[in-house]
Each structure stands twice: as structure tokens, then as C-alpha cells.
């Protein structure tokens, strides 16, 4: 019995919704346990993330990060690869952005720098994914293991670079100099002042993220390479039968995946921080796994899941401000629950739902 015959709206809508509902239910219990009213908490969370333009701007800013890292994980999923290295690839991707900005920001406007920053971040992210990809393709070393290892390598590597090589002379901070205007993407608040995004750092990278979604959709479902990636992910033996080289698919897919993760740095570094600094990724790479799972590895799903996690980040910050009992750590617990239900327990409700929907959906030829 395969579980593949669910109506699309169930697979893409109902199941994620149920997972989310379960996560919030348990979160509500946690909130009750620490003596706060869960309904009030939900109100604060929703208002803080969607209720006013500036809050929504923050939500979108976080969502931009999650779109990039979510797409990265999703592309690898389609080839049957589990890229857990988004964290490190995004971090190293920051180097590509910083190099472009530091080199150009004093001479050209931001829209000239941007293509270089995109290329640079994608190239650095891809480079960081290359060794795990190569080891998987040639040696069979599992990417799950090697990409995690490469996350740790990247942490130390970046600290070394920022502390010893790229540091602004005479500064105690492990960071580069601040970019001039040529290395800063416009904030949406400056482009659309009437929206009132205020101090929210949401910037043009959001549109780069949307473009990346379109790119991934075309890549996966409309190109030969995407066809080969999906073939390899669904049935590697059949892919070899079809003359598709596993080495090529593993390496190319991981490069694309790493490149997308690397592009997250555009939002953080060129869009918001305007300098390369330590620890700017702070978990966005890992959350990308949950975003990809929840978004069913489809760009549309990923945008929705990214906004949801953006809401949790932003609304959660408001929540810990409004309800001092709910500390920052509690917010992480709630986020963790969403990841748990949407990611790890993604299949919890599925069997029951499949049973519920199967009689009306299964086909004659099921028997074999």
C-alpha cells in the first residue's frame, strides 16, 4: 500500500495544517504550565508578526532567510540527498557577499554590486557543499554526516577569518568594516514608504528570494537536469539505466543546494547588517530543513512555510517582550515544537488520513 494517492489539497494543505495545529496545541499546554493564558499569547504572537506593518516587515525579513535555506534543502531532497549543511554554506556564503561589497561599494551603486554579491554568495555556498558532495559521490561518505561536520568547520573557519584576516584594523569586533551605500540593498521601507515598514530590515533580497523560487520551480520541473535530479532521487537504479550519472547528479545538486543556502547571506549581510560578522546565520540553515519538509519541497509551500517561521521568530520576540514569563527560551521551545511536528513527526497523521481518503481515491490497477 503506497501512501501516494492523496488529493493534492490534503497532501499540501490539510496535513501541514494538522501538524501545525498539533504543535500549537502542545505549545498552548506549555504556556498554560508556566501560568500564562495561551489565547493571549497567540494574540500577541499574531499581532506582533502580522498586526502592524513594522512587525510584518520583520516577519518578511526572517522569511527571506528561510526561503533561501528552505529551497536549498528542497533541491537536495529531490535528488534524495539530505543537505544538513545549510548553516555552514550560508555562513561561508557571507564571504562571497562581503568580497563583492568590500570591493565595489565605494565605486558603484548597489544594483551593480548585487549581481556580484549573488554570484559570490552562491559560489562560496556551493564551494562549501562541494567537498561533502564529492565525498558522497565518489566515496559514499554520507552527506548527512559530512555536511554537519562542515558546519562546524565553517564556524571555526569564519571566526579565524574574521578575527585575523578580514577584521577592521584597530577594532575589537570580529567583523569587517561597514559597507558604503554601494554595498547596501535598499530597505523596502525606503522603496515603499507608504507601507510603513519602519525600522524593519526587510529589503530587496525578498525579491531575490522570490526569483530563486521561480528558478527552483523551473529547474526541478521543467529542465532536463531537474528531470534527472528527480529520477535519481526517486529511483537511483532506474536513473543509471537511463544513462544518468550518479556522480554528476550528486555533485551538481549539492552545488545548487549549497549555492541557494549561500544566497541567504545576501539578505543578512548586504540587506541588513552591512558588514560581515560572526554568527549571523544563527540557526536559519537548520530551520530551512523544517521549512522544506513543511513546504513539501515545493517553492510555493516553502514560501508559505518560510512566512510561518518568520512569524514565529518575529511574533516570538514580541511575545517574550510582552509576557516576561515567556522567555526567549520558551519561544525556542515553541519553535522547536513546530519543527518537531512539521518536520520530524511529519508522518504522524498521514496514515490515518490516507486511510480516511484512500477508498475514494485508489485505482483499479493498484493490484500487482
Amino acid at each position, binding site marked *: *500500500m*503506497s501512501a*501516494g*494517492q492523496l488529493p493534492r489539497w490534503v497532501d499540501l494543505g490539510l496535513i501541514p495544517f494538522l501538524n501545525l495545529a498539533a504543535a500549537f496545541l502542545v505549545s498552548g499546554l506549555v504556556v498554560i504550565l508556566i501560568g500564562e493564558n495561551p489565547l493571549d499569547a497567540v494574540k500577541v504572537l499574531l499581532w506582533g508578526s502580522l498586526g502592524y506593518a513594522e512587525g510584518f516587515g520583520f516577519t518578511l525579513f526572517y522569511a527571506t532567510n528561510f526561503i533561501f535555506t528552505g529551497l536549498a534543502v528542497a533541491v537536495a531532497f529531490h535528488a534524495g540527498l539530505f543537505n544538513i549543511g545549510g548553516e555552514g554554506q550560508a555562513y561561508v556564503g557571507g564571504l562571497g557577499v562581503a568580497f563583492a561589497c568590500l570591493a565595489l561599494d565605494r565605486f558603484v551603486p548597489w544594483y551593480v554590486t548585487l549581481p556580484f554579491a549573488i554570484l559570490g554568495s552562491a559560489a562560496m555556498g556551493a564551494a562549501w557543499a562541494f567537498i561533502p558532495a564529492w565525498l558522497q559521490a565518489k566515496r559514499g561518505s554520507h552527506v548527512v554526516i559530512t555536511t554537519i561536520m562542515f558546519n562546524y568547520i565553517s564556524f571555526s573557519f569564519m571566526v579565524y577569518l574574521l578575527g585575523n584576516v578580514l577584521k577592521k584594523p584597530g577594532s575589537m569586533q570580529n567583523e569587517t568594516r561597514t559597507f558604503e551605500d554601494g554595498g547596501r540593498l535598499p530597505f523596502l521601507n525606503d522603496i515603499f514608504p507608504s507601507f510603513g515598514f519602519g525600522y524593519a530590515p526587510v529589503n530587496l533580497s525578498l525579491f531575490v528570494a522570490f526569483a530563486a523560487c521561480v528558478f527552483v520551480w*523551473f529547474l526541478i520541473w*521543467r*529542465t*532536463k537536469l531537474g*528531470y*534527472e535530479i*528527480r*529520477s535519481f532521487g*526517486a*529511483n537511483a*537504479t*532506474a536513473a*543509471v*539505466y*537511463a*544513462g*544518468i*550519472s550518479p556522480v554528476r547528479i550528486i555533485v551538481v545538486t549539492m552545488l545548487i543546494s549549497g549555492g541557494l543556502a549561500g544566497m541567504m547571506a545576501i539578505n543578512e549581510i548586504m540587506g541588513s547588517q552591512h558588514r560581515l560578522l560572526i554568527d549571523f546565520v544563527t540557526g536559519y540553515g537548520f530551520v530551512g530543513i523544517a521549512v522544506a519538509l513543511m513546504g513539501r519541497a515545493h517553492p510555493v509551500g516553502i514560501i508559505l512555510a518560510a512566512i510561518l517561521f518568520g512569524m514565529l521568530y518575529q511574533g516570538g520576540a514580541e511575545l517574550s517582550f510582552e509576557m516576561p514569563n515567556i522567555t526567549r527560551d520558551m519561544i525556542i521551545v515553541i519553535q522547536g515544537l513546530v519543527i518537531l511536528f512539521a518536520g520530524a513527526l511529519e508522518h504522524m497523521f498521514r496514515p490515518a488520513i490516507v486511510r480516511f481518503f*484512500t*477508498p*475514494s*481515491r*485508489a*485505482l*483499479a*490497477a*493498484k*493490484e*500487482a
Partner: protein
Amino acid sequence: MSEVPAIELRQINKSFGPVHANKDIDLVVKKGSIHGIIGENGAGKSTLMSILYGFYHADKGDILVDGTKVTIADSKAAIAMGIGMVHQHFMLVDNFSVLENVVLGAEDSAMLAGGLSRARNELKRLEDEYELRVDPDALIQDLPVGLQQRVEILKALYRSAEVLILDEPTGVLTPAEADHLFKILNVLKDEGKTVLLITHKLREIMAVTDTVSVMRRGEMVATRETRNTSMEELAELMVGRSVLLRVDKTPADPAAPVMEVENLTVTDSRGVQVVKDVSFSVRAGEIVGIAGVSGNGQSELLETLSGIRRATTGTLKIAGETIDLGTSTLDAADMRDKNMGHVPEDRHRMGLINSFAEYENSILGYHRDPAYSKGLLMDIGAIKKAAVEEIEKYDIRPPNPMLKTASFSGGNQQKIVLAREIERDPEILLIGQPTRGVDIGAIEFIHRRIVELRDSGKGVLLVSVELDEIRALSDRVLVMFDGKIVGERGANAEEGELGLLMAGVEDSQMSVAGGAQ
């Protein structure tokens, strides 16, 4: 005899959406008998057995076990009622021993040791009683399929099954292993067990069953005493019309060779030589059949020629080129470029991607063809159009290119593969097990297509473990045994002679090696 039947089904109905998979099924299975259920793929046999084993629940109807009306909630309940099932695809843990597999799920306590030693004694008793010899400490992965199946039977018996359902048990077996299985089934019957045998092979029904029920399109169309019926009658009942079991074809008119293989040797990942110094050629306009018990190097031969597997040494002459297979890095795509088509032996593992839509599978391996792309993008419109043409030409049902491939029946899946490979007009077509798990109607169709391809002047290399198929289609027969070609015969080779060659026996002393390879 007014004995209570082991199993009785009354008016069982089961629908999947608009599809009535089981329609008013009545079935009475006598205790201590071997009861066959035969029907084409998609006739509803597996659905019916899944209902009996608790995988599905009937929409309507009653199940009686030993004369008592029961509800079978799940397979656990079925086991508790003494119903055991041996699945087509074994449910064994490869890196566990036989003993561990038998006990799996039936451990009596948290600590294994006590249960295991009790199980060992019980297993010994079962082995003696039913002549089911297996080394309890052997790992499943080291056993040939025939023995793995024996472990499945032991599992069911260990759980005190009185009724044993076997779903297409011989699909994966060599003829010798199948014969041995039938012996086992007879012993089980003699010991009072009841056996339900699901198959679409007439020969097996005739060989081993006492009673046979025929299903067609979800209905039970007839039940016969096996000794009072014939293959022809059953075949007619199955498809609702009479079927030609033989293929009409004219003698071959072969021209120049389109493929020549010389001194091919293939070593597998364990370092064992699986193809040993094989040389042969296939000419345009002929079908060369490779007969042999499965596992004698045929699979590796096909995979090597089609560019999937690397050879150790050997040369291949094709499309005017001489390729040193020992050093070549040509992959399957390169071989397709040399006009070689390949219908692989196992369509699920290799020939199709089950989660893809039909039209996506219709170009697997040919997706780089410029006819299917528009610049960087694939031309989905052109692909679907070609898929629809193939669907019409090959009568693939249901005729829906958007449908997931897993939703097609075995015969239709095979037609998808065949259409894909034949419609690209190859000069040489490699075909492995063209009709494995395919119903009679589709077998006829597939055989006709293969002969048509030959008649249009193409070369065909056919590998099949079905001797009937080899004999019906081939213009020349090569027999493989232990990685070597041990004999070559003409179009009208005798079955007995080929059988001896397949068993590796050159002279007339026939000895059946009981199941072991």
C-alpha cells in the same frame, strides 16, 4: 462431504472509488486442500487476499473461518485465526539470521535468549515435519530466493498457521526451486494444512492444486476441480476469450550481424566471475533467445551490454564500431546513442520510476533527445503528445499520461517500457523477462510486438527464464549456465534438451538439484 470449510467468503465486495475490485465474491476453501486462485493482473486476486489477511476491509460480505463468522481487523488478527501469508515480495530482514527472522514479531519476552532457544527447537520440529530444510543460523542475505521463501513459509508455520496464502510464489523462483516449492505444498497438505495459491500461471495451477477458482475483472467466474479442467479452459475463463498460447511467426530471414560480443567476462562486486568468456552475435532480423535458470549470468550480461555494468574484458561490435568493454566508459546513454534499446528485466527496480507520471516515464533514458526540449526547458507538450501516441498504439490502459506509473497494472507498466524502447526504432533491442508478472492478454500483445520488430529487420536479444517464451519467440537459442554459454540450438529446439542444458547437464543423466543453486 459436509466438512466445515477452512475459509468461506460470502458476497465479498470491495470498491476503490469508482473501481469495483471485488464484486460479490463467493469462495469455499476445503480444509486440507490446495486451492488455486487464478486471474490476470488486476482481476482482484490480491485485493481479495488482502481482505482475508486483514490489510483491507470488505465493504460488504462475510468471512467465515472454520465455519465461524469473523471480522479480521488487521494481519495480527488474521495470524491469530491461523491465517498466514507469504508475500510476493518477502518481508525478511536481510542481515538477520533465519532464526531471528522467524521469531521477529513473535518474541515471547523482552529478553531474546530464552525465546530464541525455544524457537530453535520449534523450528527444528517444523523442519522435520514439513521437510523444510534451512540452516537456522544462515543470514537471509546469503540465501538464494528459494530458501528465503522457505523461511517465509516457516515464519507462517511458526505462528501456527493452518491456512497459508501464497501470493505469486513462483515469480522469483527458478523452475527447480518452483518444483521444490510444490513438493513442500504437497507435504503441507498431507499434514492437514490448507493452501491458497494465488498465481496467473496456468502450469502451476495444473501441477499442484486440487481446486481452482478463476477471477476476471473483480468477479469470481468459475471454480473447477483441477483434474476436470484444462489449461485451455482456464485461459479462456481468465480472459473471457480463447488465447493463442503460441506465437505466429514466419521463419527468420537474418541479414548481417548488428551486434557481436566477443570473449566477454564480467566480475561482480564480490569478485566472482558471473559472465565467463561469452561470445555470440545477433543478426538483423532475428531473435536470439538466452535461456537459463535465473542467476546464471544473464542479468549481468544484459546490464553489461546496455552500459549499466562494467565488464572485466571483452569486445562489442555495434553500429560499425568495435568497443573494448574492459576499458570503455560508455554508459547507458551512450549505448542508446548507438541505437540500442533495452527493456530491463525488472521494470520496478530499473525500467520505471513508479512515482512519476506515465508521460515522464515515456522518455526515461531519451529525455536528452532534442525533440523533447525547447532550449533549456523540456518540451512537456511534445513529451505528452508522444506519450499519448504510444498509449494508443500499445493500448496502454488507463489511457492517461498524467497518471502515476505505480497505478498501472503490471502488464500495462511493461507496455509503457516496451513502447518507449521500441518506438525509438533501435537497431538492436535487448529484452529481459518481457512478460514477467504480465497477464495473458498483454503477453500475446508483447510477443507480437517483438516479432514485428524482428520482421522490420532489427536484431533482438531476448533473455527469459520462461522456457515456453524462449521457444515461442527465438530463432536461435543460446543456453547459459554458470556464466557460460553451454549450447546453441535452432528455432525448434526440444524443451527437454534445453532443460538439460539449463541444468548444466550435457548428457542424459537428469538430476534435480533441490532448490539450491
